[in-house]
């Protein structure tokens, strides 16, 4: 039986011109090491001038790989399927740590993001 975890409750964040972006706090990164697969459910009703990334890494000091990219708001939830075992591409692999990161346009303007992320593990 799977388990659902709220990786990020509803949150709205904004950045003024020049604010590069916001990354999920280290304390909230999701530890997935106990599970073999995950379905990440991303709800993004508002995304203006920024990009939401779902990233994974096997250890906090390592290199994060993008597992999902969201550049526009959507009216229905998006699903990202991640597996720990092969066959899989680098972006489909379930890493031990999952996090989100919002990247703004930098000096090109302000940005806004409103989203929620849930993860169904198996």
């Amino acid at each position, binding site marked *: 039986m799977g388990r659902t975890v709220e990786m990020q409750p509803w*949150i*709205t*964040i*904004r*950045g*003024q011109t*020049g*604010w590069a972006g*916001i990354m999920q*706090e280290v*304390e*909230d990164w999701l530890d997935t090491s106990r599970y073999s697969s995950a379905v990440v459910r991303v709800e993004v009703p508002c995304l203006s001038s920024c990009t939401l990334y779902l990233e994974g890494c096997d250890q906090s000091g390592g290199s994060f790989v993008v597992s999902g990219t969201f550049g526009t708001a959507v009216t229905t939830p998006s699903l990202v399927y991640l597996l720990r075992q092969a066959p899989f591409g680098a972006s489909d692999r379930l890493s031990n740590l999952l996090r989100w990161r919002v990247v703004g346009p930098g000096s090109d303007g*302000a940005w806004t993001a409103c989203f929620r992320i849930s993860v169904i593990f198996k």
Partner: protein
Amino acid sequence: MANIVKELLPTVTISSKGPDQIVKPIPTFQSGWQGMGSGGGSVPAYHTVSRSIRVQPWMTFETSGGCSEDIVQPARAWLSGEQAATYHCKVEISYLSSGWTLELESSPTPEGPWVEVVAFTAQTDTVVVLSSEGGSNKFSGYIRWRLPATTSDWGACFQIKATPGINVSGITMTPKIV
């Protein structure tokens, strides 16, 4: 007859920084801080920095037409001088409407009076040291954030985290036992 020996003072340890600096050993304490994330874990002597406290997670406030009352941080999340004499506060403000202010204020009691300690008027990513032992940003008792009332459209998005620390301007260390 049994000899009962009472230890009136804990064992003192000479600091490695010099023979004249005698430092009382700081008992280990659990970092049972408020905030999200896993807490706990003992902290060895001389290291007063523990896991950071999430004073305010990323939060966005917005309104159109202004707000007639100040927006004040809920009391359950206020920083307290009971936990540490000094806090190193990381203040990240990704968005703040022009003409608006995010204030950190302090009071010796929860009822007030509240006095502004430091104010931010623009986007910033900075660390301020708040200490009850002196310095430019002195606090007493409790610390909270406040967004003052305004008559115009406004918005703010910010996060505040704090780490208990020591006021490095002096050699006197004040142990805090939780």
